[in-house]
């Protein structure tokens, strides 16, 4: 159907594909979530998670637990699994795995720069960074005053360097410039990742194109909704959308001029895959949109495992684990705040 991947994939990728499918089997099930949703305290959650693969990471945590501790420890498990896969991978899989972490790298850069602008201690900011997005010179970000310095002093030697060409200016860093930088970097990263997957070809290109196009479309919708009523102009908004995806280019033209959620709905309902998402929402409401998008994403990620001999399973696994950690974070917050009736507002079941 694609190429002769079935004949050659297992030479270099067979071991890791088997590993990642084993990891996938360890994802929490609906029964696990039902037990977790009935917990009364965070210690109950810890007790239930001790019977899962998260057990060794949480067992030594003292009471009283905090929700951020649970999220941190669960993230450590993901990081350990990722590092195991990365150290065993050969090209081009190793580059593919590195691409998966560039989004976290961008978030960490923006966190350090924003925190420094607000005169926060660098060590405190480093503790809040996502471990998958760390790089050696990240602490040096605190000395940069504008984007040119940011690039010249630190980022030129990182994988994010090629993404800076569109946003290098000598303007001082402020909240608006940082926001535009964040979204411009992410746009460049997604486009680069998309091109890389296209070059790989075969099942990887097919499956990853679909997943990355969905990511690009979701970002376009979120940027539109979040920028309603802000100082961001229509042109600036349009420049933040990625140049691929189902919505590119005509959907983007219409989204750029939307002034409220109902206009966004009107644009999105013209596209059949997104009609089902927006049909779950009532008019004027956007609270459940995130959950609807997450549910659609999980469906597509699970489908990636239905085929063999492609790299999409690695991307899908990382994203599913991140969704699981988001679920655990939400359940923990609802339990800690005594709002268990709201626990199903944001939990997305994976199986």
């Amino acid at each position, binding site marked *: 159907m694609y190429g002769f991947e079935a004949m050659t994939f297992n030479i270099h990728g067979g071991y890791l594909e088997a590993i990642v499918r084993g990891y996938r089997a360890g994802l929490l099930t609906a029964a696990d979530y039902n037990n977790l949703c009935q917990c009364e305290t965070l210690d109950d959650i810890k007790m239930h998670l001790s019977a899962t693969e998260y057990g060794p990471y949480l067992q030594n945590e003292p009471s009283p637990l905090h929700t951020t501790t649970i999220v941190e420890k669960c993230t450590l498990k993901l990081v350990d699994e990722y590092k195991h896969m990365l150290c065993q991978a050969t090209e081009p899989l190793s580059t593919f795995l590195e691409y998966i972490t560039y989004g976290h790298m961008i978030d960490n850069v923006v966190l350090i720069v*924003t925190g420094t602008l607000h005169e926060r201690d660098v060590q405190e900011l480093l503790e809040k960074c996502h471990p998958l997005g760390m790089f050696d010179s990240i602490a040096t970000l605190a000395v940069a005053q504008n984007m040119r310095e940011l690039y010249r002093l630190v980022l030129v030697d990182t994988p994010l360097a090629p993404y800076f060409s569109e946003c290098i200016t000598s303007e001082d860093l402020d909240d608006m410039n940082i926001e535009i930088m964040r979204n411009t970097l992410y746009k460049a990263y997604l486009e680069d990742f998309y091109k890389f997957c296209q070059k790989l070809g075969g099942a990887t290109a097919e499956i990853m194109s679909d997943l990355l196009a969905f990511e690009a479309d979701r970002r376009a919708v979120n940027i539109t909704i979040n920028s309603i009523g802000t100082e961001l102009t229509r042109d600036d908004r349009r420049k933040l959308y990625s140049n691929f995806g189902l919505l590119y280019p005509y959907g983007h033209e219409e989204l750029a001029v939307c002034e409220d959620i109902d206009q966004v709905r009107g644009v999105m309902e013209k596209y059949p895959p997104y009609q089902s998402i927006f049909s779950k929402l009532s008019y004027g409401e956007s*609270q459940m949109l995130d959950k609807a998008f997450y549910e659609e994403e999980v469906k597509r990620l699970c489908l990636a495992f239905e085929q063999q001999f492609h790299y999409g399973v690695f991307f899908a696994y990382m994203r599913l684990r991140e969704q699981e950690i988001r679920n655990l974070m939400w359940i923990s917050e609802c339990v800690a705040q005594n709002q268990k009736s709201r626990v199903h507002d944001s939990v997305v079941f994976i199986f």
Partner: protein
Amino acid sequence: MMEDQEEKGNAENGIGRQKQVKDEYLLQFLDSLDGYLTLLDSLSSTLSQGWLELASARHAMGASRINGALLDLKVHAAATSLKVSEQDVDSMESQPCFTLCKWASSDNGERSSGEEKSLSPQLRHRNNSQLSGIISSPQRQKSLSVFGVLVSPKLRSAQLSFERALETLVEIANLHTTMLSMFEQVHKELENTNG
């Protein structure tokens, strides 16, 4: 005899008026106590809603975008301040009156154009909520900009909830002083009766 009856009548009227005044103070005290308890309940549910919306925003935007490490430590004027003034009640005694000045910055001299809510229990001045929302919208967005310019609507809802909670707190403070003042009045009347 006629004079005795007149004096007796006057005395009875006086006692009746005193009883009426005592009942009035008692009713005012009970009304303020009821309002106080209702506001406490409202505050609790508004704060719960605000915290859950904040958690929801964290869930949507990610922990790296919404965390305490991003809060601004630079010295800057408070976006919202509290004014305490003395208010004369019945020309007898003064009680403190708390007024919230929302989204007013003394740095750029726009204090008079800031939204001011006088929440004295006797007379309430409330700006039109839609108009005040439009007027203070840039300042409201500015205070959220520590988390970025493009933030989720859930974070904005959380901000509104905490704003409402702050207004409720000021109402509670004013009602509390009224309640204490009414309690003093009732106590005085009881002492006068017993004395």
